[in-house]
């Protein structure tokens, strides 16, 4: 069992691309759920909007990558309006129903035969991100290591840009939530009727929150497809949304840095467990295999079983998250 390798992988996972992408998506969900109390069960739909914003522009319209970045936000904004208009006047669970349904429909639409000329269908879209990588100051194919971390050059380039964006967006959210606008959102979360009685148009504020969080989610989707260099409909699976929920609840909803902390804890744990299982010494492996089969497929699947169990237990016993405080916890009220 190669502990050095396992630790290297786990350390690298701690600030790796997945952490950054999921943290960014969780920042968006935090705006929705943590600050406004919106039950968005379709964050992956916004990620897909971001991904296809650039993918479709390059693949179908044959326009430039940079112009595609505009569409990332156009698509996400339109999606937020479509989801918000019918639901935001209603009780919280209706938004949940519609968002989960819409995110799955987006995936099915994107992978359908009919949309193949536009979205690439099941094969998806690749070779669209060159303009981004051409700007890289790092040698794309070379491994760089510093301290306990080790990454490929192209990943470092994505990481630099991604983390910069993540920090900037987080600081922006922090500033916004300290502003009167952010205080209104929290007032709506705590007691919508009271906020309305004070003359705040709750529907309007909730819509703005849905759009802001959706745009941040789209940004996460964009970085994800740039990092993978391919847009694949099936990567925008509903289970991603709930991984993001798990991450947010680990960190504690309604706290500025919780998405980053939650994402880092989640991915370090997953990478560590998966690598340990893959490298078990023969004896221990044989013992364990008497009850469970440890094929690569099963080990990969384990992550989702952990997500499911984790979400169930966290929502039941620690809805405020590991570091959250009960005062800032929307799940606990109503």
């Amino acid at each position, binding site marked *: 069992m190669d502990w050095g390798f396992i630790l290297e992988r786990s350390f690298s996972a701690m600030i790796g691309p997945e952490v950054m992408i999921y943290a960014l998506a969780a920042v968006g969900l935090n705006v929705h759920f943590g600050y406004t109390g919106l039950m968005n069960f379709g964050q992956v739909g916004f990620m897909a909007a971001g991904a296809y914003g650039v993918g479709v522009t390059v693949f179908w319209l044959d326009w430039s990558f940079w112009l595609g970045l505009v569409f990332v936000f156009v698509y996400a904004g339109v999606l937020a309006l479509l989801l918000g208009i019918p639901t935001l006047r209603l009780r919280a669970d209706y938004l949940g129903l*519609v968002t*989960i349904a819409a995110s799955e*429909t987006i995936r099915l639409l994107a992978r359908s035969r009919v949309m193949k000329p536009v979205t690439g269908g099941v094969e998806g879209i690749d070779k669209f991100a060159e303009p981004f990588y051409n700007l890289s100051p790092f040698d794309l194919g070379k491994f760089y290591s510093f301290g306990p971390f080790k990454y490929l050059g192209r990943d470092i380039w994505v990481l630099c840009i991604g983390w910069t964006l993540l920090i900037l967006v987080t600081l922006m959210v922090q500033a916004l939530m300290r502003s009167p606008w952010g205080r209104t959102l929290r007032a709506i979360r705590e007691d919508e009727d009271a906020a309305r009685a004070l003359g705040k148009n709750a529907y309007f504020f909730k819509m703005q929150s849905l759009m802001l969080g959706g745009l941040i989610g789209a940004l996460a989707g964009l970085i994800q497809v740039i990092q993978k260099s391919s847009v694949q409909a099936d990567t925008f699976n509903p289970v991603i949304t709930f991984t993001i929920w798990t991450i947010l609840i680990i960190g504690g909803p309604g706290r500025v840095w919780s998405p980053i902390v939650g994402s880092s804890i989640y991915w370090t744990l997953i990478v560590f467990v998966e690598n340990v299982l893959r490298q078990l010494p023969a004896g221990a492996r044989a013992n364990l295999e008497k*009850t*469970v089969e440890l094929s690569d497929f099963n080990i*990969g699947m384990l992550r989702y079983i952990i997500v499911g169990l*984790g979400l169930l237990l966290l*929502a039941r016993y620690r*809805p405020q998250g590991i570091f959250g405080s009960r005062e800032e916890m929307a799940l*606990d009220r109503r």
Partner: protein
Amino acid sequence: MMRRGGRVALLALGVLLGMGAAAPAFAQISDDLGVFGQLQYSDGSGNKVFVAGVDLSIDDVGGATTDADGNFRIPVPSPGEYTINIDVATLPAGIALRDPDRPSLQVKVSENADQRIIFPLVSAEASALSGASGGAEGNWSVRRVSQLTLEGLKLGLYLAMAAIGLSLIFGTTGLVNFAHAEMISWGTLMAYFFNIYGLAGFLGFMAGWPAPFGGGIEFVVATVFATAMGGALGYVLNRLVFRTARNSGVSLLAQMVMTIGLSILLRYVFLYFFGGRYRSYGEYASQRANKFWVLELTTRDSIAMGVSVLILVAVGIGLTRTRAGRAMRAVSDNKDLAESSGIDVEKVITQVWVLGGALAALAGTFFGFDQVKWDLGTRILLLIFAAVTLGGLGTAFGALVGALLVGVAINLSTLVIDSELKNMTALIVLIFALLLRPQGLLGKKQRIG
């Protein structure tokens, strides 16, 4: 009393989820990947004919010959891209590929699912006929519209059985149960296991036992047991997870997130035990359709539809005429009022979970006729949400009406959109229902608050 109930529930959970984790022989179903398909063409009168004895192959991997029903499956060693070739020389006389230039197709096999592949075939006789009669029949013909309506009613009846539980659980507890999809898959998978392996055959060490424990049992009997297992799952989930959560004052929103965690947990446990392959029941997997008037329906589907109608009528009568049913509706209507008039609310909630679980499982066994798969429930969750919202969340009869309307709407939508996208109709129905009448057709205004 409480403690004993808890222990029974724990034991039941052990049986349901652990399912003999102690028995090493309890392996997953072998999880080899493969490429599969069915070769068929339409004869002159529009009937499907399956083509047997055609050789297909994948270079360096292997090959297969189609069986009597035209089915083939070629196992592949790992996910990846494969080229599959059809040996045109083995096709029967008069039958040809629709695209003669494409005797080889590319497929991409992903890591957890078999890949279906279609070689479209045409018969010389049929193409001559359609040429003579001036092309294909019109899209909006009476035959097509009535056939789609019938298919829609079939879907609607199954959906209704699945949706009533969701609606009643919401009505009595205020909880939207996102794990309801897994309660449907549970029914399908249980029916499959009982049907193929017998009541306990999946425990491995009992596989050799005589029927009904080992070996596999008749599908109809398996369905009855699967329905009972559905009720058991409903009981256990309520008893172990949601009743304790209610008692310790966990908020409804937190419970909703719990149902999502539960849904993912169950879904991937199913994937672990069942594997990503699509399978079919031992019996009734494919049947010829019977014709009456312009409609076509297999005997299997007619019986399943009949059973659904009977069950739904029975549930309807039960809800309106029996004491327990009236109590359920009373709790859905106003929990506090029901409680103060002496109804044991917790008992009613237990009954609703058991009833909902059993109905969902039965619906699941019917949905499994086409294909048995681990995420079957998840794929129809959208339709169920649309059905209950359209009918009115929390009302049992609303769920019934909504399900039938959604079923028919989805099938009729294929007249104008590609059938691959037909489930999108459900989302459109859902959004318009919320815009125009958010309380649903049969719901009351105060519910949406």
